[in-house]
């Protein structure tokens, strides 16, 4: 067996171990490489930045634990920017696990401590509503007819933030972060097509290409492209967190992937040349 034949079929255990190392090593010794901000995240940032104080944002926590490592940091950065700008945030969840992601995110934001925000006045979480697009249409249609309690069962009547929010006409921006294609498309259908609202969306990087056409046509004003978008937002908002830490890990692990691709191609090419002719 020639060296090329060996290289064209490395055992999976070796590949897996190298991948594991490429994640652990940079996690232990971060490099702190500079970042370049992508246009899609810049637009997300600018859209929120352009909102006047006290504008109302409807924020959908549309992911669960499967998406948390990738989307949680971006969600935290997005909240930092919104609280920093004194926006009123109405939070909901179209994902089953959204109500369990909410405390994890809020632990990272700490709106009371960092921004003096008051629950019920500056932000509120109305919890999980089943039905995905039906839930979106319900909240945008007549919020008070649908929702009576917040996620812990406290009545929402008497919460100042919701006094002036009855539906789509009172909401200035819809922002969502999700792992689901149905949710990513659903907000474009229900908020943009139905009410011509401004919408920004965050998704896993693997979904970005599929929702990119909405961004090109202005149906989405910005996209947070997975962990990269999250790192961009952390950088733009000046709140470095888990996503920026991850970019060093990405450097190592993706370089390893590139090496694998090179080895795979060269060895394949060499063995084919030797074998077939």
């Amino acid at each position, binding site marked *: 067996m020639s060296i090329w034949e060996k290289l064209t079929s*490395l055992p*999976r255990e070796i*590949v*897996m171990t190298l*991948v594991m190392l490429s994640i652990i090593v940079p996690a232990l010794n971060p490099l702190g*490489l*500079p*970042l*370049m901000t*992508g*246009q*899609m995240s810049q637009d997300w940032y600018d859209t929120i930045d352009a909102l006047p104080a006290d504008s109302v944002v409807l924020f959908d926590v549309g992911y*669960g*634990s*499967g*998406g*948390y*490592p*990738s989307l949680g940091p971006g969600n935290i950065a997005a909240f930092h920017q919104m609280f920093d700008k004194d926006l009123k945030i109405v939070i909901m969840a179209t994902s*089953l696990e959204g*109500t*369990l992601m909410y*405390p994890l995110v809020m632990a990272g934001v700490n709106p009371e401590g960092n921004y003096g925000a008051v629950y019920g006045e500056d932000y509120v979480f109305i919890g999980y*509503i*089943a*039905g995905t697009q*039906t*839930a979106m*249409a*319900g909240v945008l*249609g*007549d919020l008070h*007819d*649908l929702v009576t309690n917040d*996620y*812990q069962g406290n009545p929402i009547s008497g919460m100042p933030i919701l006094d002036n929010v009855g539906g789509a006409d009172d909401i200035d921006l819809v922002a969502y972060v999700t792992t689901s294609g149905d949710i990513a498309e659903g907000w474009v259908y229900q908020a943009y097509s*139905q009410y011509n609202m401004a919408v920004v969306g965050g998704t896993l990087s693997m979904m*970005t*290409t*599929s929702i*990119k*056409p909405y961004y*090109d046509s202005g149906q989405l004003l910005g996209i947070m492209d997975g962990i*990269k978008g999250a790192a961009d937002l952390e950088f733009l908002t000046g709140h470095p967190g888990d996503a920026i830490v991850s*970019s*060093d890990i*990405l*450097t190592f*692990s*993706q*370089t*390893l*992937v*590139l090496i*694998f*691709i090179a*080895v*795979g*191609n060269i060895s*394949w090419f060499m063995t084919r040349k030797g074998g077939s002719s």
Partner: protein
Amino acid sequence: MDYKRDIPLAITFLVGVIAIGDYYTGIQAVTDTFNIIKNWGIVLQGFALGLGAVNLFRVHGKRISARKEGTDWIFSVVLLVMLAVHVVIGLITGQYEQGETYNWLYNSIYLPISSTMYSSLAFYMAYGAYKVLRARNFDAALLFITAVLVIIGNTPMFPAIYPGFFHMREWIFGPIVSGAYRGVRIGIGIGAVVLGIKTLIGMETGYLGRR
């Protein structure tokens, strides 16, 4: 007339047409009716969430009582026990998923498995990139070019050395992705609409199940 099929088909048609009417017309009565439909739909979706669990009980209950296929039935026991424990803890407190014990269990069991299960595909991605991404024919070569350029642009080290790598990545996400995916999106969109119309007019009845 077969009321077991025709009435449901009529319900689908009626509800769908009201939803469409709400969007396109300014008639108040339609909008009010649709508001009720929406609110009903949300409650019904809540009921539908239990269907999966009932199915699991049936499938795994059978497997446990048959006890074939080696030791696999033990895992079915694990599944049903975990299911039952979580449901009881979630419902008994009256605080649902906000209950302290439920939260504790969720964060120590479900969250780590779920977030690792899908992300551990990273190993497959690496192995796949090594075995898969080979310029073996023209189609694969096209994929290969953009995939490698995007990975390079996504790896912070390379743009740090030469910013052009990042601009290349951004450019690929510009015209290349925008153009082709716009075509794909238009195709998917019209496909979904045609299927939807066929469902509303009763030509697509798969959701009704067996005859």
